[in-house]
């Protein structure tokens, strides 16, 4: 029962986690807008989310898939597992954060300046604003789901 409740929220919470990861990624692009040699990165969000939630992407643009992949090493000890000290404890699944780092891609189409920096501050700020709004949308959707469950639990009479 509880597991089903958790599952009904998992898509939204996955989306929320990935949105916050992307937020951090764009933040680092903005912070590094003056760093020589820094290359702006971003992710194909719908692809990563569908990978994570095990669903197929509705339609991903063909151009996005052919972007060069950013090779990124996974640090050791990055995965954490929950330890159960009693058989009554619920099973905790570790949050898989590696997926986003693996699918990070260099942003294309921006001309690098003479110091090798490819951050376009306007593009980054636009992406940041977009991601903020979508984060709030995911938050709202999650909130709505929780509200629905609460209504179902409480019943009509309250």
């Amino acid at each position, binding site marked *: 029962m509880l597991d089903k409740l958790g599952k009904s929220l998992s898509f939204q919470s996955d989306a929320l986690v990935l949105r916050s*990861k992307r937020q951090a990624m764009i933040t680092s692009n903005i912070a*590094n807008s*003056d*760093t020589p040699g820094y290359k702006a990165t971003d992710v194909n969000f719908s692809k990563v989310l569908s990978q994570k939630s095990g669903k197929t992407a509705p339609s991903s643009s063909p151009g996005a898939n052919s972007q060069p992949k*950013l090779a*990124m090493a996974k640090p050791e000890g990055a995965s954490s597992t929950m330890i159960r000290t009693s058989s009554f404890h619920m099973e905790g699944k570790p949050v898989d954060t590696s997926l*986003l780092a693996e699918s990070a891609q260099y942003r294309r189409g921006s001309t690098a300046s003479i110091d090798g920096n490819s951050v376009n501050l306007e593009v980054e700020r636009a992406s940041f604003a977009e991601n903020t709004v979508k984060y709030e949308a995911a*938050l709202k959707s999650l909130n709505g789901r929780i509200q629905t469950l609460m209504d179902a639990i409480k019943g009509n009479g309250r």
Partner: protein
Amino acid sequence: MSLFNSFKVAGSGMYSQTQRLNTVASNIANAETVANSEDTVYQARKVVFEAQLKRAMGNQASASAGVAVKEVTVNDSPAKKVYDPSSPLADNNGYVYLPNVNIAEEIVDMISSSRSYQASAEVMNTSKQLMLKTLNLGG
């Protein structure tokens, strides 16, 4: 939670830009500092940034990177030589030496730096608001 990471990264950006502003301030303040030889005259300084992938992400796999000042470089182009025999610092030939600071360049650097600072500050503000909204989840 990676919104905390956003704070760290934006904070590192703000801190680095502050250091850049500091060097600009130092260059402008010393633009008229004369010296009696080319070896002792003030030279314009400039910071070089570096992405800090490891430190920002701590133990988690993530592609976000903070920024830090890698080094402060000194501009070693020749100092301006001005004939001013009345100056107490004039050398035997009556010359004093002025720093190689280019004020126009420094002002441009200052504007660029303050814009970057503003961008990071805005990012931090937005992240904070998102976080507060997330704290209210289900309420």
